[in-house]
């Protein structure tokens, strides 16, 4: 192995370990770690097995191994970004829904407090089970 190869493999292995450690500490979900682990393992594989990279380069008709590496690296990052944007959109929708439900629940609570004749905040829930709340005016 050349020195450059050794360094590449070392970096990739460290990345895998770092990702796994983040998952272990619950700082990263298994779902998000998957892409990173797969990509890092791919890098390890390419670093160890030079024939694979040369083979891919030839199969693609590319001139240099380096451009193949950069191509796949960029592709990976782009896909990752799109994936994040999709996740972000989903999260935005969830937050919006929660904000709306929180506003609706808060108004209901205020109405119930007012109906209960009340300025003072109600005592904590009695042990004998909560009293049935007024069912509102659903049609």
């Amino acid at each position: 192995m050349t020195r450059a190869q050794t360094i590449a493999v070392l970096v990739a292995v460290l990345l895998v370990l770092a990702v796994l450690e983040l998952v272990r500490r619950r700082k990263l979900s298994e779902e998000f770690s998957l892409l990173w682990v797969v990509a890092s393992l791919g890098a390890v594989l390419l670093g160890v097995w030079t024939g694979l990279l040369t083979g891919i380069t030839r199969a693609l008709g590319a001139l240099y191994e380096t451009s193949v590496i950069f191509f796949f690296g960029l592709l990976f990052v782009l896909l990752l970004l799109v994936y994040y944007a999709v996740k972000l959109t989903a999260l935005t929708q969830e937050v919006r829904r929660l904000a709306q439900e929180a506003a609706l629940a808060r108004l209901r609570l205020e109405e119930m407090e007012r109906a209960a004749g009340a300025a003072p905040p109600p005592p904590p829930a009695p042990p004998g089970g909560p009293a049935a709340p007024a069912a509102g005016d659903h049609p």
Partner: protein
Amino acid sequence: MRALLVVPAYDEEESLPATLAELAREAPGLDVLVVDDGSADGTAAAARAAGVPVLVLPVNLGVGGALQTGFRYALERGYDVAVQFDADGQHDPRDLPALLAPLAAGACDLVIGSRFVERAGGYRAPWTRRAGMLLFSGLTSLAVGRRLSDTTSGLRAYGRRVMRLCLDYFPQDFPDAPLLIWLARQGVRWTEVPAHMRARRGGTSFYTFTKSLYYPYKTLLASLIAVLRTGAGERGPAA
């Protein structure tokens, strides 16, 4: 028919009291709901002082998100119609009977108060905005197959069916052309009635300069998607 006026308000403590007072005076039979869209000022307090129920959103969602919250409330409480009404005093409560009439007659599911049908009220926007309005109303008319003169009007009445559709899909920032295209293509029966616009009482418009750059892009893209979406949706089972 039970109708609810939904007033989305973002930092409108200046103009809200006058608007609510005018509504109580001019449209006494109608229930009013203020949706405080994450305001930093005393918007919610101003509404409470007027004895109007307030939904307080913990974060700012935009006009669309606030309105959608109002629809959830209206559907939950059995209202037949929700009317979108601006907090800043641009809308005239005297337009409300005409706005509600087609819904009460069961002829429509969506009524839009238009500034341009019959040239009601002397509203005159800056020319850039007029050009934009013309462009979007032209494109929207093309997409829905019928003339729609005012896509940006914030005075609209929505029936229950439309409110339910709006829970599925609703543009959060500008519920304008794309929404109307989507609704029309879902088979919603709509009409326009003349409406009068006045100068705003205070606060600042939702349509600010930075947004004016983003708005055309967003509206064109979303309109296109609305056309494509309904095209694809028709093949599947109806929602």
